[in-house]
């Protein structure tokens, strides 16, 4: 996918003016956010689990080479095949080769953000394969020719009417006067259509929420059951997963799974958590005849050795974006690449470059909500701040911002001059604002004042108020201490 992250500002402006998008996003606070809070409150151990989960992931990363080797050995022992891919292109090539050598024509897919990252669908389609997304949200996006705007709720930017229109346009073979007013009716229609695809697919491709070194299993966590139909009906099951997905044991996965659904959708557990190990056994009557895992690096090994290693703890729950005021305002597409929200701002510059994605680190108020909910306790604001610094060091920060920063810094280096200047400014602003006590327009700040008034300072600076208060407090203590 062609990134447009460098255009974040204009993407955001478009998003803010999009009424349907705003309506779709308005459900977040009472939806996923409230549900997570309720699930956390039902489990008193939640905060302790976050510490334990963070430690597991740190341990995995510290021993990643060894767990990957063990994982590979166990997959092979179970009769599966592991393919290592350094880049997106390597992964796509490997998957296409597997499909072609099986004579495949039709591929069904479970939801996988990594497959978005490597642009898998386009690659397979270009080679003449039919590729069908089976997660309902992903299916809707596929027929709209759009990308996911959220990592666990891919179609969260759409309202129901849009889906109805898409289905009427896409499913011309169905009666024109059919009822499609309830979500259930839309879900049912997709169910009928996709059933046929599940049954005729030659290959099923899924992602993985975790890979288990102990047993060589891959895990998918879903609610719809589409991932299970995708991987159980066709002859071939291919798993695409990044190398950072490996965890040591089933017990470790259990601890992380307790956090995942609760952080993501606020469910205690999703309807389906599925562990796949190798192809079907000799006497199994169903399941795939062959099982392949693509282990993708695509920049992770570099991240591992960098100051951004902590983002690799991410378990892709989506909580950081659900709680982000910027994401809530503009949605996921404005971020311009696969991973939106705070995790995208922390991860994307490493995957597609600071020049392209550095702007995302600026799309934050640093309110800290993302870090406060991240089950893996990833210090997202700290990482974003670091990307800002790198962007500045590289000279990629916009010129106006650089000048403004330089001007501010040159004064701030002289505290007494800074205080004098700011108290002058504050007084001037107060006088300038007059009786209104606020500005309706200010030079260089019309972006702010277009939407609201800027209240004027009340005449004294913070330092002045502070000094006065300190003085008053000392007087008071002196007074009480005097007998």
């Amino acid at each position, binding site marked *: 996918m062609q990134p447009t992250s460098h255009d974040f500002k204009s993407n955001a402006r478009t998003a803010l003016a999009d009424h349907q998008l705003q309506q779709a996003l308005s459900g977040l606070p009472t939806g996923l956010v409230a549900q997570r809070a309720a699930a956390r409150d039902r489990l008193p151990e939640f905060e302790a689990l976050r510490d334990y989960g963070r430690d597991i992931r740190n341990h995995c990363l510290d021993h990643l080479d060894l767990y990957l080797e063990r994982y590979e050995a166990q997959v092979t022992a179970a009769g599966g095949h592991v393919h290592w891919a350094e880049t997106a292109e390597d992964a796509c090539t490997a998957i296409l080769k597997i499909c072609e050598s099986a004579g495949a024509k039709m591929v069904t897919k479970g939801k996988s953000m990594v497959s978005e990252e490597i642009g898998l669908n386009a690659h397979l389609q270009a080679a003449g394969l039919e590729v069908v997304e089976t997660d309902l949200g992903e299916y809707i996006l596929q027929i709209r020719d759009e990308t996911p705007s959220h990592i666990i709720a891919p179609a969260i930017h759409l*309202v129901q009417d849009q889906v109805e229109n898409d289905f009427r346009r896409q499913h011309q073979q169905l009666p024109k006067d059919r009822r499609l007013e309830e979500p259930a009716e839309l*879900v049912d229609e997709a169910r009928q259509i996709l059933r046929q695809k599940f049954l005729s697919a030659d290959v099923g491709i899924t992602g993985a929420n975790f890979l288990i070194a102990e047993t060589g299993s891959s895990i998918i966590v879903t609610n719809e059951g*589409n991932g299970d139909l995708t991987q159980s009906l066709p002859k071939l099951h291919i798993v695409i997963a990044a190398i950072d997905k490996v965890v040591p*044991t089933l017990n470790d996965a259990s601890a992380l799974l307790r956090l995942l659904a609760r952080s993501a959708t606020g469910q205690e557990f999703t309807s*389906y958590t599925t*562990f796949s190990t190798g192809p079907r056994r000799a006497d199994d009557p*169903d399941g795939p005849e062959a099982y392949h895992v693509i282990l993708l690096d695509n920049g992770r090994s570099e991240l591992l050795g960098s100051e951004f290693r902590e983002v690799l703890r991410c378990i892709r729950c989506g909580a950081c974006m659900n709680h982000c005021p910027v994401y809530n305002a503009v949605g996921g597409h404005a971020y311009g690449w696969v991973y939106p929200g705070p995790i995208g701002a922390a991860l994307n510059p490493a995957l597609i470059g600071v020049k392209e994605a550095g702007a995302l680190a600026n799309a934050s108020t640093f309110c800290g909500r993302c870090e406060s909910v991240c089950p893996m306790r990833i210090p997202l604001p700290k990482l974003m701040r670091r990307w800002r610094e790198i962007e500045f060091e590289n000279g990629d920060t916009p010129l106006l911002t650089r000048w403004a920063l330089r001007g501010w810094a040159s004064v701030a280096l002289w505290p007494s001059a800074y205080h004098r200047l700011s108290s002058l400014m504050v007084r001037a602003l107060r006088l300038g604002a007059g009786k209104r006590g606020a500005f309706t327009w200010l030079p260089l700040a019309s972006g702010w004042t277009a939407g609201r008034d800027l209240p004027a300072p009340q005449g004294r600076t913070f330092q002045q108020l502070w000094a006065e208060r300190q003085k008053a407090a000392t007087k008071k203590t002196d007074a009480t201490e005097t007998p």
Partner: protein
Amino acid sequence: MSRASILGKVRSALNATTDDTERQATVAARLRDLPRVTPPQRVAAPNTDLVACFVGELERQLATVKEVGDPSEIPPAIAEYLRAQNQPLGLRHGSDPRLADLDFSAVPNFEVKTGPALPDDSCGLSYAFAGVAETGTMALLSGPENPVTLGFLPDTHIIIVPRDRILATYEDAFSLLSKEKGAGAMPRTLNLISGPSRTADIGGRIVIGAHGPRRLLALVTAQL
């Protein structure tokens, strides 16, 4: 080639070498000891009623749960459920002998088939390996006894869960699996099922019956 290169990059990122015995020992110890996090109080507190917890949690997730005393009560309970749901009287199950022993002959016109699911099957019946009380979860093992497709193709999925195999945690279920099938042994597919198929992909509203079963019945029984 890619393998050596990726592992090499990972090692150099970690400043590790291939002959680092200390790191190897740490990893071997974790894989041997299988450390566990402290289990949630909701199942770990003394005198917890695991069956009640299992039932309560599973019902919260929109499954139907019914407790039956004797295995002979299972066929009428299934027939009653299917009738109440307006479903055809019939089902398919795998070669699990405990399921083959169920006698549906008292239910008129009840059709029992065996084998993996076919597209037109209306109901699949599985036997759970274990239940997990903490979230009302059932562990199912794929194989000829309980083919995996039975839980996903039919509109109705019914799972029998023996009362005395309802354990506290996921870790307990995994350790039972190791004990009974051999250390670290896994079937092709291990399903942890905690409710019927659902989606919230259209306008964030929950709809039951996305791609998998539209309804899920768990029958908690004495051991068959």
